[in-house]
């Protein structure tokens, strides 16, 4: 089994060439993010996650986190200590405001650090990740007092956070939730109800757990319009920030899962006894709005999980492919078995993984860059364009990177042959771990609907058209470069097909939305793959400029590989996008009638 080695060169390359990091340092509040300092942060973060967190990944899987009879949850071996060091080093605060103890760095840098955390141990990473979501909701919607009391401790990581949306009858349809909030007459609320699937809902790593809970107030309108957001701490907090009594919230069970065994997925019960005390965040019935604020960030982080786990699975597959000898590769001397990396099919598999990983990294980091412009842009226009691009890219990052995460970790298992199927090899874990990512934080089916139903119509289609235009700019830059001619060819064909599918959707989307829904998933794959092709082409172009011949050769070959194996499939997806609802409806009436 291979240790995790942070792909620092690739991360730096992406920050410098795929993202315009220099431009980010020109945005409001980011001037301190100078190259030297950013380099230092990346170096030390890499060392930290490799040495402290990565070694916990196996025990996290095999032993897992456990619920004890008294309702407490003991984190998997080594995690409590790793978390303590994580808090001490302060890595959770890099991208948050200085006034609450953060570093106020661009989110793009946080995302790079989060990639390392997630590769090191995805199940563990979910605790900081959910905390991050709760922090984001508090920053944007919390009252001044709430921010004063909670933010500093949550940003440091001393207190962790959770997000409580799901109930047994309310998954994708959050509006169906039934947890109740009743005023207690002193400004606080009494919360009662049961939430399921709550990630890190209970554990022993942090001193307090701040639950953000969606619930309904009396006489609230039905559906998502009647949902409010509440803060329910595990331990009540005194005015001076000290910990008081235990609140009436408990973990009644944890789930047995396919993967991420170190992350306790809890059934949380609120108000079994005297009633859980909660504080409303933001306005009554505005809970969904608060959720939407943090959704972009959370969905990007889940997309990043697809990338991060794939990276680790790739490193393991590459190392194994050098170790394992089997068969004789073409041209190898007789009587000696070759390392499997000498077989063309293994080379193809590994290059598929590597090229997709580079494309995913580019996409996730560009998505974060758009979020930075949205929040810190130089003017209204910059902020608006940032927000719109982030809105468009978020479902792509979430769904494409997590679908690829499953595909690529599966390829890693395949490279390992029979050993891949044996748990001791440690590679099946990645496939099992990453399998949740297309499901939670809005299933990938929901992401496709979001893309087609909400994102394409933004500004009457101007947002997606501007993005397609930017791909056209890359295409023009490829003109006349012989070694990237095949990239230009496949990118042109993919762009043409995607543009046509986009126009078709924009048109039928308004006249017959069901046709749009029918083709949504295929369309997401089209747009994301074409965007991935653009990113790898941009990388190849930047590498040519770098003066580093090895780099230029490698990036060119990855762009060509992706073009031939992934971009070339894009035009074939168009038929699926435009096939319409009719056969699905027929199927529903017949084959799927049940």
């Amino acid at each position: 089994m291979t240790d995790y080695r942070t792909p620092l060169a690739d991360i730096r390359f992406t920050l410098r060439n795929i993202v315009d990091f220099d431009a980010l340092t020109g945005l409001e509040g980011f001037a301190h993010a100078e190259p030297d300092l950013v380099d230092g942060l990346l170096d030390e973060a890499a060392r930290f996650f490799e040495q402290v967190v990565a070694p916990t990944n196996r025990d996290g899987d095999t032993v897992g986190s456990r619920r004890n009879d008294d309702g407490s949850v003991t984190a998997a071996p080594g995690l409590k200590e790793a978390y303590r060091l994580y808090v001490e080093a302060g890595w959770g605060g890099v991208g948050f405001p200085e006034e609450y103890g953060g570093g106020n760095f661009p989110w793009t840098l946080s995302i790079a650090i989060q990639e390392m955390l997630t590769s090191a141990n995805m199940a563990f990473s979910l605790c900081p990740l959910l905390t991050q979501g709760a922090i984001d909701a508090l920053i944007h919607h919390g009252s001044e007092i709430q921010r004063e009391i909670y933010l500093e401790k949550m940003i440091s990581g001393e207190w962790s956070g959770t997000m409580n949306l799901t109930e047994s009858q309310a998954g994708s349809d959050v509006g169906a939730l039934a947890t109740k909030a009743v005023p207690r007459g002193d400004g606080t609320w009494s919360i009662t109800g049961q939430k399921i699937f709550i990630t890190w809902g209970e554990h022993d790593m942090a001193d307090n757990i701040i639950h953000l809970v969606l619930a309904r107030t009396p006489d609230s309108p039905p559906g998502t319009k009647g949902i409010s957001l509440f803060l329910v701490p595990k331990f009540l907090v005194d005015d001076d920030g000290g910990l008081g009594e235990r609140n009436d919230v408990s973990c009644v069970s944890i789930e047995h899962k396919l993967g991420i065994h170190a992350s306790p997925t809890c059934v949380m019960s609120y108000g079994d006894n005297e009633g859980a005390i909660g504080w409303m965040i933001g306005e009554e019935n505005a809970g969904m709005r608060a959720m939407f604020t943090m959704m972009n960030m959370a969905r990007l982080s889940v997309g990043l999980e697809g990338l991060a786990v794939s990276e680790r699975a790739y490193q393991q597959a590459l190392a194994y492919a050098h170790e394992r000898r089997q068969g004789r590769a073409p041209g190898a001397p007789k009587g000696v078995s070759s390392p499997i990396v000498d077989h063309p099919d293994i080379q193809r598999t590994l290059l598929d993984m590597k090229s997709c990983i580079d494309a995913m990294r580019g996409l996730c980091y560009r998505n974060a860059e758009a979020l930075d412009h949205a929040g810190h842009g130089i003017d209204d226009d910059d902020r608006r364009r940032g927000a719109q691009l982030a809105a468009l890219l978020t479902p792509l990052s979430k769904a494409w990177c997590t679908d690829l995460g499953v595909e690529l970790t599966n390829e890693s298992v395949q490279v390992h042959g029979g050993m891949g199927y044996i748990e001791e090899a440690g590679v099946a874990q990645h496939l099992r771990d990453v399998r949740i990512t297309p499901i939670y934080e809005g299933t990938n089916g929901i992401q496709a609907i979001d893309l087609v139903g909400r994102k394409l119509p933004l500004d009457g289609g101007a947002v997606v058209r501007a993005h397609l235009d930017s791909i056209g700019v890359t295409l023009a830059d490829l003109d006349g470069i012989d070694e990237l001619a095949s990239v230009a060819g496949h990118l042109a064909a993919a762009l043409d097909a995607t543009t046509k599918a986009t126009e078709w959707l924009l048109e039928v989307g308004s006249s017959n939305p069901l046709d749009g829904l029918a083709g949504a998933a295929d369309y997401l794959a089209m747009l994301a793959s074409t965007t991935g092709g653009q990113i790898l082409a941009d990388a190849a172009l930047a590498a040519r400029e770098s003066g580093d011949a090895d780099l230029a050769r490698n990036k060119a070959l990855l762009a060509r590989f992706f073009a031939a194996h992934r971009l070339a499939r894009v035009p074939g997806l168009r038929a699926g996008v435009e096939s319409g609802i009719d056969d699905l409806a027929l199927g529903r009436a017949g084959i799927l009638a049940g």
Partner: protein
Amino acid sequence: MKVVVCVKQIPDPADPGELDPDSKTLRRDVKLILDESDSYGVEMALQLVDTAGEGEVHLVSMVPNNEVSGLRTALAMGAAGASLISDECLAGSDALGTAKVLAKAIAAQEPDLVLTATESSDGYTGTVPVQIAELLGLPSVTFAKEIEIDGSTAKVKRQTEAGYDDVECPLPAVVSVTAGVVEPRYPSFKGIMAAKNKPVEELTVEALGIDAGEVGWAGSRQDIVEITAAPVREAGEIIEDEGDAHERIVAFLDELKVL
């Protein structure tokens, strides 16, 4: 109290690069990092200053290029400042040449205590600490596992094969710290940010008043005659316990003549 810690910046052992066939030494034109062996000295020094309630930790490092990334790590851990002796003429220095340069830079700091590792992870001669002590005319204590400062005396637990010796010496002194005896802290991201503004004084050989002929290839009295690849480690023998494992292990050790 002022503690000077010698920190060597070395090629990343996980990605060490190559040996230069001409000079028979490791190529150092790659990125250098803090030698892990020295992180223990840095941690020990930070703890001593913490216990003393006053003072600071100052780093001294010598490199042939002007690499600072290893220094930044130690500064981010909490050291207050650093002296970096960087001079092209230092390339190829042997241990004594290194010790001469370090000794001059250390003396300029007028420290109460000088810490080093017992040996570096790359050069590995383990001779620099005692050479520094000799050149500065200071007491030398090696293989420290614990240091306590009592007024102007250092009380050191010095690791031995059998256990440890209690050693006392007057300050200032040069003490080498055994790897693994403390848990080096990981720099916090705030520490990393603060390190950016900490002073790193760059010194040349000339500024230290050393004749360039005494150091580097010119001054080296060591000649690396030959380098050979280390033998590949053979697969070990796995002894499964069928009730007689202890006897087989004893027989095995007997054969190696280690018993």
